[in-house]
């Protein structure tokens, strides 16, 4: 997202309807001539934070004993790391809280740092204040279980195993894994995609997308420089593999005697029908993962900007339902791209082409040579087959329960 164009230093009181990501930018303006604007934006963020908490009745803070810092400024991290000591009991012994210096345990340091990186990415790029957008504390437990080969979000906290040392290293080693897990929390508080079949694969893919963005944002990597790997470094040296998944080339992350070959499909032609893994949620997520990569590749630059914004606004908007499938998600992202960047814009075109490439929607006509690799100029006409949003913007979404704290708010 580009820096918003400030037309006037006078910001009226209607800034409560300004998307949080813009308020965030405004609140950070240091130029004295925008002092009033920055102050108004900060006030609005504080007020919105309280409103969001009230609006979140359907998603109360997950822990009954959840704390919130009385003087906490929106966007600030509030992290607590606990140590399960090899047991499978949560939360474990508290070992580091917000602001305390790093100790000698790498799992504690890595989890603390990556929780912070995740909070920073969501706040700075999307104006989202923690998992629930209401400043929910970020809690994690490390050293869960014995040789435990997993990391998961349990609805309240992130939990990390140490790995078995043969196949897996400790699960805190990868920022993309930590971003992935926290994003399950974000999905829980927003679209709440059902963890089964295609909606479950979307749930997984969204976690991979924002997990990758957390890592890229942390490292300042562009789309072309990034690895697009999820869980890089997680395998020990004994494994023939570079990561758990590749968003750029699903199905190529590993090929090992013990683990077999990475089974992720990269298009609907390879869609896996299975009863295992809740209907293959970790397998078929390769399809929307690649769609996101293709959008990022087409647009270029930093993927957390335009591509990330399209996905974030879709996740937190009103178009998705808990059982949305790939086609519904494709339509929703195309609609979001058209709404944010214009019908027929480069972003809109990239989204349509990506979903067509992975076989979720019908193929779109090839662009004329003059439009390849060039930004779409305002008013440019695309062929009818892909110049119309897949979702009619005049058709209201089906009625349903209030889902997320920012449903319907662009930029929230």
């Amino acid at each position: 997202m580009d820096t918003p164009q400030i037309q006037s230093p006078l910001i009226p009181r209607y800034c409560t309807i300004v998307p949080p990501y813009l308020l965030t930018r405004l609140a950070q303006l240091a130029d004295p001539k925008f002092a009033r604007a920055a102050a108004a934006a900060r006030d609005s963020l504080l007020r919105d934070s309280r409103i969001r908490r009230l609006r979140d009745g359907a998603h109360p803070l997950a822990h009954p004993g959840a704390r919130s810092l009385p003087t906490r400024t929106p966007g600030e991290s509030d992290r607590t790391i606990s140590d399960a000591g090899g047991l499978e009991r949560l939360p474990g012994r508290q070992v580091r809280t917000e602001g305390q210096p790093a100790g000698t345990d790498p799992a504690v340091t890595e989890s603390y740092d990556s929780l912070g990186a995740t909070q920073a990415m969501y706040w700075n790029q999307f104006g989202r204040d923690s998992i629930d957008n209401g400043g929910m504390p970020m809690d994690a437990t490390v050293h869960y279980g014995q040789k435990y080969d997993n990391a998961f979000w349990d609805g309240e906290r992130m939990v990390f195993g140490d790995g078995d040392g043969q196949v897996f290293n400790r699960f805190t080693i990868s920022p993309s894994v930590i971003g992935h897990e926290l994003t399950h929390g974000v999905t829980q508080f927003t679209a709440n995609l059902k963890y089964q079949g295609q909606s479950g694969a979307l749930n997984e893919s969204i976690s991979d997308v924002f997990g990758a963005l957390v890592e890229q944002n942390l490292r300042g990597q562009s789309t072309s420089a990034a690895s697009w790997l999820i869980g890089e470094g997680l395998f020990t040296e004994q494994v023939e593999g570079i990561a758990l998944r590749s968003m750029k080339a699903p199905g190529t992350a590993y090929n090992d005697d013990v683990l077999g070959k990475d089974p992720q499909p990269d298009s609907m032609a390879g869609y896996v029908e299975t009863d295992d893994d809740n209907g293959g949620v970790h397998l078929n997520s390769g399809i929307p993962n690649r769609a996101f990569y293709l959008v990022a590749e087409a647009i270029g630059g930093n993927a957390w900007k335009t591509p990330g914004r399209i996905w974030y606004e879709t996740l937190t908007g009103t178009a998705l339902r808990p059982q949305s499938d790939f086609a519904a998600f494709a339509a929703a992202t195309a609609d979001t791209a058209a709404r944010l960047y214009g019908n027929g814009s480069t972003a809109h075109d990239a989204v349509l082409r990506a979903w067509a490439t992975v076989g979720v929607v019908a193929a779109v006509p090839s662009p004329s040579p003059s439009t390849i690799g060039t930004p779409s100029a305002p008013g440019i006409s695309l062929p009818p087959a892909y110049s119309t949003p897949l979702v009619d913007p005049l058709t209201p979404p089906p009625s349903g329960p209030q889902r997320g704290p920012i449903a319907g708010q662009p930029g929230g």
Partner: protein
Amino acid sequence: MKVIVSRSGGMAGIRLTWEVRVEEQPDPAIWADFLDSLPWDDVTDSVATVDRFAYRIRCAPHEVVLAEPEVNGPWRDLVNRVKAANGM
């Protein structure tokens, strides 16, 4: 008699399978008694949990699918025994 434990899901989404032929174990009678004692018919549908493992356990004519939080007591014992028999 064969016991197959297949673990799928987890954050990694990698499926691993461990298998035991009871008659090839040093204590087949104990294995058989243990397998008979398992509450095969008491298993209800599992609730999907984000990034947790799911275990499919087969021992003809039985087959159950357990979410990770449900792998407790005798089921935990079975999974550990089968993995141990496979050197895990």
